[in-house]
């Protein structure tokens, strides 16, 4: 039975914003369509004519991936679209894991020769579902325990701050910052453990 935490988006930021261009990612995403891993990937869209938004979008059936600049900072965004079963923790884990896998796949893509590196200590979580998860302090409160539980899997004992975007017209968006350095690979391992 789908729970309330649907359309979950997770974004990790590039260490160096210019390390990989939308054109390169466009090529890489195209290749991913031909080499899918347990999911249906459909098409790639180029939106580089718009400054702050998805720059290159990989459209999938269950989820989308994009090199994203919506908040003015370049990163890789994972966005779940189709309903997921499980409780909030399971949804959060699944989304985090999918986002990290995509980051790792991009870091390792031969086309970028290791130039693309993600900063693990910061991430953005947003929920594109104004009905199920309205952008309010209450929603975040209700989610806090589950969210911190899942975050502690990747960040261990590190101190974590959660900052909610208070513009109520935006969907629920939380900026998450952990103290310390975290690599994509280490976080992935931690999550898999």
């Amino acid at each position: 039975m789908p729970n309330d935490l649907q359309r979950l988006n997770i974004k990790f930021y590039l260490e160096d914003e210019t390390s990989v261009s939308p054109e390169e990612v466009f090529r890489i995403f195209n290749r991913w369509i031909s080499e899918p891993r347990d999911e249906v990937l459909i098409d790639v869209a180029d939106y580089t004519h718009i400054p702050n938004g998805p720059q290159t979008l990989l459209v999938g059936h269950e989820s989308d991936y994009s090199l994203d600049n919506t908040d003015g900072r370049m990163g890789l965004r994972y966005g779940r679209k189709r309903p997921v079963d499980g409780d909030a923790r399971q949804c959060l884990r699944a989304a985090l894991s999918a986002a990290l896998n995509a980051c790792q796949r991009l870091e390792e893509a031969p086309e970028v020769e290791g130039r693309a590196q993600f900063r693990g200590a910061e991430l953005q979580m947003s929920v594109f579902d104004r009905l199920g998860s309205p952008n309010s302090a209450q929603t975040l409160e209700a989610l806090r325990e589950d969210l911190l539980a899942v975050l502690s899997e990747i960040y261990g004992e590190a101190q974590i701050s959660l900052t909610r975007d208070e513009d109520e017209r935006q969907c629920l968006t939380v900026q998450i910052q952990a103290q310390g350095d975290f690599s994509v690979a280490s976080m992935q391992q931690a999550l898999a453990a």
Partner: protein
Amino acid sequence: MSGLTWKDELGDRIPEDLGREIDIFETEIELRSQDKLDETLFAETRLRRGVYGQRYDNGQRFDGTETQQLAYPEALTKGPNTMWHAPGMQRIKIPFGGLSVEQMEVLADLGEEVSDSILHVTTRQDIQLHYVHIEDTPDMMRRLAAVGITTREACGNSVRNVTACPLAGVCNTESFDVTPYSRALARFLLGHEDMQDFGRKFKIAFSGCRHEACGLTNMHDLGALGVTRMVDGVEKRGFEVWVGGGLGAVPHQAKLFDEFVSEEELLPLAQAIGRVFARLGEKRNRARARVKFLIAKLGIEEFKRLVLEERQQLPHDDRWTSYLDDLDETDEEPLKPGQALNGADQPEGFEAWHETNVYRQRQTGHVVVTVYLPLGDLTSNQMRSLASISQRYVKDTVRLTVEQNVVLRWISEADLPALYSELKAIGLGGAAAGTIVDITACPGTDTCKLGISSSRGLAGELRRRLAERYHTLDAAVQDLRIKISGCFNSCGQHHAADIGFYGISRKINGLTVPHFQVILGGRWKDNAGSFGLPMAAVPSKNIPAVVERLAERFIGERQQAENFQDYIGRIGKREVKAILDDLAQVPTYEEDPSFYRDWGDVREYTIDDMGKGECAGEVVPLAQFELTAAEREAFEAQILLDEGDAGVAYSIACGAMVQAARALVRTQFLDVGDDAERIIEEFRTRFVDTELFFDPFAKDKFARYLFRNHEEPLTNPSAEDAHRTIEEAQLFIEGAFACYGRISDAEGTLAGS
């Protein structure tokens, strides 16, 4: 799970009738998902609600090397060859392009929640969302309905969005504000029982004056141009009504139906036209089902007689005139009083922006600002910010334009510098609206199933190049309009541009190469006053050079204030062709592989994503040669038409079709000879009956041009008849090229197996 639904949440904010409609649709989705509703029926019902298919929804995509199967979770379909889970396009009707702040906010939210955070403005003042899942559509429709927007009849064989000049009500040249009339007609016809049995779509546009381009009434099934007339010493409002216009593969200029239809008669007349169209319009052959074909068949006089007869029989309906009491409902008021600019500080870039993006309203002190959207796209965040800007500078006075932009009306001039800075901050401060940089493009191969070449890829490339050089361009070049369609269907309105392009493909040395037909001589002004004609097929990669060369020659050779159409007319088509000749050549793959990929794509080019045709047969290399000769003949016909010889132009165009048919027949039967009758018979049995000639979507549409022109030749063709026949010949020849391409592919496959 809380069980909260949008239906409960929105409650009675959803108008009852729309709510019921949406509930029915939701049930149909449920039934289809259980395979309890036929797929074709379901397709029709979803199309009527603006729920379109999208490229790759047949479950296949060419990845540059081979066609990949997209492994959707179930085999269920939402229409023939359309996978249930494949993302689709949602068209959202915005009558006369008018948007309120609240509507903009909901659109922004939906863009994020059900689409890819991008909203696309179309060439008919609609909004489109892409990559939408069918199961997300009912709630999306409810949220739209709650703010007064419907997607009903946004597609399908119905009355499509009613468009109108985006300047209506504030324009300096209009007779009166056509907004309330367009709104009334849109409301009256929405879901009207007389408008449900069409063989094809029906498009309506309103314009406030004759000479500007805004309304494009000439290319609509029904165009209403606001005019006034003195009746018994009192000024009466009415409409000059035009019918049977339309773009599409073969464009038709609208015909004058009546010079003055009073405001009281407008709605009943539209209803009567709808009834006649439903009764007599073609139903089986989609390719000839638009009103334009009915009028061509009956003649305008007979059509008019039938409509007026129908009008007399219509049972009275109060709605015909009741809206006249509420004409002022759409009147707008400024948020702030109009104040002059008065030497206020100007941010960087302001002057250039002011020059192209600001229009002085009829009302002193107020201006209309055009927000230029590259490729008609904006993000959800940009839409939300625009809503907030509108709220602070104007009221609900925002409109979408057919040039795929947004306009903010009733801006006080004194606010312009601050407004400009705010637009710039959200990435919407682009100058050069309405210039050569502001290119119109249909979705093309990006998302449209029928796309042949990448209209958006090309538009993006041209825009980048032209924007860089904009300030160095001569003013006459800056003013040119470019419009691009991804195929012959002309959704990008390429006929009504100074320079138009539509996507085609050509087989070169066994490989398929993306091309565009170059269309010149069209006219955007005068409500799309004339339509351009094809000049040359040029590989996509050379199109930027085409624009550059035409612009240079125009500036170098233009006489005094000669405009582009006059210049092209003066130098003549032969010369234009000569200018473009070398650009039509395609280097071999080894010399330049980039020609074998389309703009904005990294894959090797293919037309396989459109769907497969059935092919067999032998190929002789002669075919390509003979088809090119046929194309040359069609071009010759254009020249003769320009020289005023419609009769000869017409017969040469017909001859060119026969010649192209012969080229195909000769791939199987070399000795077919020269007799037209024999060629056509052989062509029919070998290529049409076998469906070898069938385009994946247009089917035998183009073959019918050949048959009709042969079976019912015109004895005394007018210039318009000749013009149309040349277009038909061009399309038939294009179809023959494509068929030849498919045959060679099949042969390649045989040879390889």
